[in-house]
């Protein structure tokens, strides 16, 4: 794989080759920055050149549109839920513990380190929507371009070869750094999924949430074992995976506002549903997401989730 992974002591040089070491004077700095990312809680880290975005995004969404003179983008991936959370029979545990923002913390660690130690500008890449539902910079694309993963049949989630589902954040910097190559091998579909597809015409994720039976996923795998076609019903998925987030708050608030009966309105305001929607917005980050089923059945990274 492209980026560095594992503990800080084996942070490595990602996809850099011995030739890169000779050519790039910043190889030691890259290793240092990756080491900080891993020590700050990252599970994987990769570096992409800022101009790698040129071929994929419109003007205004490239790293150097966000930070002038940006040269590199360092992307960090973190496992969110613990293996125990995946195992829990109480699905609410994943709703609440599914995401702990470790990737954001690691990226802030890197940005501080670069500015203070090396004197280059460094910022967290803006990943939340600022207009409509589009973020200024896609973290999914960032993960792909930094060699940390590839798109999957399961809701286009970027899968890392070792860990499967990861949460990503990125740091944009003016510091020139040696870069990691993008992955040459698709992570999805896993050989087991190809075999399942040949047998029943679906992969485990498609079978968990089939679009033709009211679910969100569909797709085709070609003779070469690669994704030939992928279908993802984003609206349907959002309505199921995010019952208690901002969306539900807005949806229910509209109903509350339009309720003329003051008694009913009060009941709605104090209802468990609205309370949980409020909690989901709060710093407790309750109920960030409510559906993990396509990832639960994914064999990629399963070894990392099997413990004693």
């Amino acid at each position, binding site marked *: 794989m492209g980026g560095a992974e594992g503990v800080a002591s084996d942070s490595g040089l990602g996809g850099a080759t011995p030739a890169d070491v000779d050519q790039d004077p910043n190889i030691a700095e890259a290793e240092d920055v990756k080491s900080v990312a891993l020590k700050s809680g990252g599970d994987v880290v990769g570096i992409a050149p800022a101009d790698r975005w040129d071929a994929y995004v419109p003007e205004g969404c490239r790293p150097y549109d966000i930070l002038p003179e940006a040269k590199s983008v360092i992307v960090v991936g973190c496992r969110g839920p*613990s293996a*125990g959370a995946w195992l829990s*029979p*109480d699905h609410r545990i994943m709703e609440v513990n599914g995401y702990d923002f470790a990737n954001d913390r690691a990226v802030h660690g890197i940005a501080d380190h670069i500015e203070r130690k090396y004197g280059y500008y460094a910022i967290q890449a803006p990943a939340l929507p600022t207009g409509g539902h589009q973020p200024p910079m896609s973290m999914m694309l960032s993960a792909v371009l930094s060699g940390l993963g590839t798109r999957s049949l399961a809701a286009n989630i970027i899968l890392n070869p070792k860990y499967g589902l990861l949460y990503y954040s990125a740091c944009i910097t003016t510091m020139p750094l040696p870069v990691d190559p993008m992955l040459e091998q698709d992570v999805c579909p896993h050989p087991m999924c190809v075999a399942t597809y040949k047998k029943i015409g679906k992969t485990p994720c498609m079978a968990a949430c089939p679009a033709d039976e009211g679910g969100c996923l569909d797709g085709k795998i070609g003779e070469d074992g690669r994704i030939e076609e992928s279908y993802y019903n984003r609206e349907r998925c959002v309505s199921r995976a995010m019952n208690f987030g901002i969306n539900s708050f807005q949806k229910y608030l509209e109903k509350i506002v339009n309720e003329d009966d*003051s008694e009913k309105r009060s009941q709605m305001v104090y209802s468990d549903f609205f*309370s949980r929607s409020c*909690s989901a917005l709060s710093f407790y980050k309750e109920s960030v997401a409510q559906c993990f089923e396509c990832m639960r059945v994914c064999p990629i990274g399963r070894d990392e989730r099997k413990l004693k």
Partner: protein
Amino acid sequence: MSASSEAMVETSPKDELINLALKGGALVAGVADAAAFTAAPESHRPVDLLPGAKSVFVVGGAAPRAGDWRSPNYQHMEVTSINDRITALSLKLAHHVERKFGYYSVGFPPGVDRGQQPFVSVALAAELAGCGTASLAGPVLNAEYGFMYYAAFATTLPMEPDGPPQESACPAPECVEMWNAEGTTPCLSTCPIDKGGCLGGRLEDGKVAERSYDRARCTSRVYNYWVPGFQKALDSILSESDKESRRMMIHSTFFTRTLWSITYANVSQGQCYECMRVCPVGKEHRTLK
């Protein structure tokens, strides 16, 4: 017994975790037997969150600093006292157990589940892990430090449980003395249930013999600006027929603070610390130069 800040020799996963907890800012840490949560209702026990859970690791800390208690601006405590630092530490330790020792771990969510019930009571976990005991005032008090915040995670890693402390931190000797002289304790007198407050109780032979606590009243005073405050304000705003008044309510300080309170800025989480302010347990840690 659970550990407090002395250096530990790393001889076992439990010792290593305690050492990491203390290095990470915890004041106390301990282990509860996952099977000991018999006082919790079914579906709210560690094994309900994590099948095969053997132990519950508890960390306590993030208490208001001595300077926080000292501030004459009572609103200062509203905006600085919060459990998220200790919750983050607990989650970090849960990941450590999985990644270093290879056992499953699940953090107890800090919020509440359906019907405002906690997933698993962190207060019960703290008691069973030997970190503290229940008090007349409500919070679990550590014998050394008094009031603090707790967080916990369940794990399939077997560890020697500490068990509940032999001695209760509450009532402190000063409180027993006050009870014998005046028929009340510092916390009971600061918020007496028979005078519109939240706390009642009785000591007998230097021990708590009876306790009453008006949770609803306490919540309405402690959580003025959090989700309940937001809901209350929203309900009032929507019931207001006058457009101008409604606009004023929306832009009011009260409503603004409820919004700050529920966001990640987590301002104004708790507005009343008076029963803890007068508590003598851990007072020496709140008294500096």
